[in-house]
């Protein structure tokens, strides 16, 4: 059901695009599918439109601000996200870029991602790797929030076997758990191998905002803007546009000749 609108738009646009180097996913115009009706539909389509990054292998994730720009009613988005999270369809992660950034990943993608990381770590040396299995089976299943306390983590892991400090440090080295700055007893759940992408995210946001701010009237038509490529970010323009529109830094307005993107003043 959700593949249909995407493939139809891809089909009509692809015939017009000559540039073969352009990604197949970027061939559909953002203007056509900027908004969706349902949160799950929006999540699945945005997951399919996740840009392919060469050097880093990462499963698709969606930022919460992208969802806000895609579905009209934000309260509905929050409530549906909450129920999907409780049904263990997806997981939320707090990111360290900016104030209220959250990343949403489908649970299957997340499990695939951490499996990749665990496999890579296992190849290096033979040190207590059963903690990975414990983590997947016990912790991910029962703890659905973005953060976890040290005692609770140990108690959940010990359902699999005896927990030592080296187990926790393996998890931290793998990147699935990050110590919180404010409270040494609390950890955030995190997506491993996401560091370079987050850096690219922050730089791409700055680049896009400065690109628009440098213009005389601080605005640009969406059709021209989405064809530009960002130099500092491995993520594509559409990803950044959805994110910045959802977080309120950019505004869209309807004009007779299409959508226009403006930098919003406070």
């Amino acid at each position, binding site marked *: 059901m959700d593949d249909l609108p995407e493939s139809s738009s891809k089909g009509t646009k692809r015939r017009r695009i000559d540039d073969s180097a352009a990604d197949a996913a970027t061939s559909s115009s953002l203007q056509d599918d900027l908004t969706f009706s349902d949160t799950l539909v929006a999540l699945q389509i945005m997951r399919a439109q996740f840009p392919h990054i060469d050097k880093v292998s990462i499963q698709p994730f969606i930022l919460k601000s992208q969802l806000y720009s895609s579905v009209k009613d*934000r309260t509905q*988005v929050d409530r549906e996200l909450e129920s999907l999270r409780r049904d263990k369809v997806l997981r939320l992660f707090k990111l360290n870029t900016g104030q*209220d950034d959250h990343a949403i990943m489908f649970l299957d993608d997340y499990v695939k991602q951490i499996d990749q990381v665990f496999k890579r770590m296992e190849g290096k040396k033979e040190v207590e790797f059963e903690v990975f299995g414990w983590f997947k089976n016990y912790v991910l299943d029962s703890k659905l929030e973005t953060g976890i306390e040290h005692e609770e983590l140990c108690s959940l892991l010990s359902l699999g076997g005896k927990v030592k400090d080296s187990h926790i440090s393996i998890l931290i080295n793998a990147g699935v758990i990050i110590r919180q*700055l404010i*409270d040494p007893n*609390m950890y955030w759940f995190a997506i491993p191998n996401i560091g370079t992408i987050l850096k690219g995210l922050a730089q791409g946001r700055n680049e896009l905002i400065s690109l628009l701010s440098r213009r005389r009237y601080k605005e640009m038509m969406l059709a021209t803007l989405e064809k530009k490529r960002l130099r500092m970010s491995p993520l594509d323009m559409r990803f950044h546009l959805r994110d910045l529109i959802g977080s309120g830094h950019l505004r869209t307005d309807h004009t007779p000749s299409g959508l226009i993107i403006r930098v919003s003043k*406070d």
Partner: protein
Amino acid sequence: MHTWKQIRDREFGNLRPHRFSNRIKSRRLSDLQLSNHKDFLSPHKGALNSLQVDLTEGRYLLSAAADASVAVFDVQRPTEYEAGGLISKHRCLFLVDKQHQLAHKYAVSSAVWYPVDTGLFITGSFDHHINVWDTNTTQVVVNFKMPGKVYRTAMSPLATSHMLVAAATEDVQVRLCDVASGAFAHTLSGHRDGVMSVEWSTSNQSRTQLGRRPSVLKRSTMNKESTFKSSSAGQTTSAKLRVAQKKLPNGNGSRQVVVGRVPAKGPIKQRLHPGMLSTQDRATAHYGAVTGLKVTDDGMYLLSSGSDSRLRLWDIESGCDTLVNFETVRLQTNKPIQLATSQDSTRVFVPCMRTVKAFDMWSGSTSATFRGHYECVNSCWFNEQDQELYTGGSDRQILVWSPPRLISDEMEEGIAEDQDSWSN
């Protein structure tokens, strides 16, 4: 035309008076803009920190500023008219500033009226003092010394058996000061850092004859609610107190919400929220400080604004987050802000940097944006009687936002001063 028809319906009994007044009020509420007929001449030389109109008459506006000055304005009677009687200017009735004996030495962070009458007002300041002033003589009657800077003071609007001032200070404990005796009555502890805002509940719950009501207190690092007992003459009443927490100086804090459960009596009409996030999950509510709190007038919901630029609506009875998403982009992070709600709980007025945004309470959509201040807005107060919004900002101004008054009506009727109409 529409209004005349509604008046006639009310006369004939087709429209209930209550509904008629609600319709007029909500139409006026949606027409708010920078007032074209009212102006406050602010005598303050520092940023406005707090505004409050007295709860008994709705007539006197108390404003507190960062230059240690406190002023009172008459909202209904102007001191002079300009532009041929079209614009009413309100000067302050009196100003208490640093020259005054026993006045505050540093910024006054909050000034509230005594809820029973306008004879007293209470000010809290960064000079670690809370002063209780007599309005008529502008003298300090009672003085409390706090261990740290006072961020907010609050008195319960419903209390008949106690005269307690709740003080939120830099210190981790919230102190309840008794005006009648001049001593500290209670100390509420549980926070790990300074408390930035405090609010009393607007619905006095669980009145019991004797004994204590059990309350489950969950440990939290952000938002704490505790029940305390104040026994008086054989009857035990308990009021719920909500406090919030300031963020730690380094790093960003992740805060959790605590739920104090007090079984309530009687049927309560509740809105059902699908997918309500329960704070029992110890999920973080605000990443960072809680900068402002407001309890709705029916006492059922609590609004909290945080330095993570989110505004959240909590259901007080169940302690759950209703997950209404308010489209706030940026909120002030270093100073406490004062939120305002309309009485029928449909609109929330939030100071967002230089603008004040009005949100619909239940859907979270922005209904209006009020741009007028030159610098950050710190506090706002909604006057229910006249449907006017007063906002104070760091630009030292108090702005009035009201439904527009048609100039043509005024011109025909003449000057709105107090004149005898039978002697020309």
